[in-house]
């Protein structure tokens, strides 16, 4: 067993191979750990979008119906309508806040020194193009165009802005090793994404899907800037 497996919570390459059917050449080795999952495709992403929309509608409709019907039955029940409208607004907002958590700024670990952060940020800047480098320096987030849309990659997760720039999916995904600089974590995820976008989305956990405007309200300033950059790139390639 490798050092990383011994030290952390993730398996070594050897045990990845032993965990299930070994992914083919060019595929993420981590897919062996989630062999039961259907590989993500454009069709499965659209299905996930529809499921999330239906879920939100199912949450909202009872509250909205309550808010409309009760005052018609008895005007005094208007106060209940106000609460129902509050729930109709709050519940989707709580889900969106959970999605926004994937780009929540992380506290710097005690074992990570500032020099390592600077070196890692420089390395990440070398991996991305000139147009993205400034965004990386300002926000610590990398924006990458993929087949499924535009990815906004942070240290512990990523947003996938779908073509057209109106809808976004939030993915929670982590790197083994607590002592890595934040920019190194972004570089890890970016390289995995570039190597196998479908595999990356399969390994990561989808935490939320919905409208960009709903997510934006719950993001930090730097994450909002990253989302805006992703939306701008996604608008250049409207949904086909």
């Amino acid at each position, binding site marked *: 067993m490798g050092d990383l497996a011994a030290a952390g919570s993730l398996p070594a390459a050897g045990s990845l191979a032993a965990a299930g059917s070994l992914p083919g050449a060019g595929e993420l080795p981590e897919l062996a750990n989630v062999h039961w999952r259907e590989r993500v495709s454009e069709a499965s992403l659209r299905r996930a979008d529809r499921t999330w929309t239906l879920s939100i509608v199912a949450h909202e409709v009872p509250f909205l119906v309550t808010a409309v019907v009760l005052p018609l039955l008895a005007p005094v029940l208007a106060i209940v309508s106000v609460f129902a409208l509050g729930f109709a607004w709050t519940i989707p907002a709580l889900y969106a806040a959970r999605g926004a958590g994937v780009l929540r700024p992380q506290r710097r670990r005690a074992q990570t020194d500032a*020099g390592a952060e600077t070196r890692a940020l420089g*390395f990440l800047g070398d991996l991305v193009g000139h147009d993205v480098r400034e965004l990386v320096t300002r926000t610590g987030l990398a924006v990458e165009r993929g087949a499924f849309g535009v990815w906004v990659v942070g240290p512990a997760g990523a947003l996938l802005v779908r073509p057209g720039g109106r809808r976004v999916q939030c993915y929670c995904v982590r790197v*083994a090793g607590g002592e890595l600089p934040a920019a190194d974590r972004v570089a890890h995820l970016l390289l*995995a994404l570039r190597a196998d976008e479908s595999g990356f989305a399969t390994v990561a956990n989808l935490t939320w899907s919905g409208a960009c405007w709903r997510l934006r309200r719950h993001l930090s300033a730097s994450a909002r800037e990253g989302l805006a950059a992703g939306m701008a790139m996604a608008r250049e390639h409207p949904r086909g």
Partner: protein
Amino acid sequence: MSRLIRMDQTGHTVLAHWSPDDLAGTEAARAALQAELDRGYLAVASEPDGSATAVRELPLDSELVILRRPIAGG
């Protein structure tokens, strides 16, 4: 000159340099790559155009091979 880089807690560490006509450098890079793969690192050949390929052996024609740690859903 191609480079083998490991992303680690220092930011990154250059483990080896090689060129196709440098047999000793190539062998050293191969050995370093294998040692890191055995430790649980995963290798990615990163190309200047922004593409990347997961590799298990040293690609001699790649300019940059990066060792990363496994990822998992959070």
